[in-house]
């Protein structure tokens, strides 16, 4: 199964204890599948992950968006609070 690295931030990063996680998922990998697998692996942050968005190469994508494992930078973006 292809491996995919996902960048983590804020409370999700704290829950993981790391700034990124590598997930093994059956291809083709969608943004929604990444989200779901993260929530499985980090149950303590499950509620927060379910309201987070996935960004690919700096843009938000929909759940059905297919990820190019070899080129894309993938990040989980919990609800933001800048400003």
């Amino acid at each position, binding site marked *: 199964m292809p491996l995919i690295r996902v960048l983590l*931030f*804020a409370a999700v990063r704290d829950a993981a204890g790391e700034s990124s996680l590598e997930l093994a998922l059956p291809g083709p990998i969608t943004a929604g599948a990444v989200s779901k697998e993260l929530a499985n692996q980090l149950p303590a942050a499950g509620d927060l992950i379910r309201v987070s968005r996935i960004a690919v190469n700096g843009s938000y994508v929909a759940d059905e968006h297919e990820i190019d494992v070899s080129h894309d930078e993938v990040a989980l*973006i*919990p609800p933001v609070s800048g400003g």
Partner: protein
Amino acid sequence: MQTIQLVNQPIDPAKWAHCLHDIDTGSHLWFSGVTRRKTTDSSGQTTVTRTLHYEAYAEMAIEQLERLAKDARLRFELSGVVIIHRLGEVPLGEASVLVGCSSAHRKSSFEAVPWIMYRLKADVPIWKRETFEDSSTQWIHP
């Protein structure tokens, strides 16, 4: 013209003023969002902040802010846009964000600055961790 930057030092508005300079604009508007000590929620409960820390997904934050500034310039016919966000600790009374807009007439600036702040707070990957009076901390995920 637009100026976007993430900084780790105090924001000095005077340093960015020249970015809006244009002899054909009649209106310059600057918003500073400042770390506030007291917050009173809807039930009247007051919490006291000791300090704030900000973290960003920097590459994406810059990209989103550049896009946001470009959208604002088109939508409100702005001449200049400045968005500066500070990261790391932002102590009480200091600014975490500075937004400036210039336009021929004041109406455009008055509409643009609130719109930029609204969009920034909805979409730009920056997060605030609050440290309360009792030293407990909490990431803010609204």
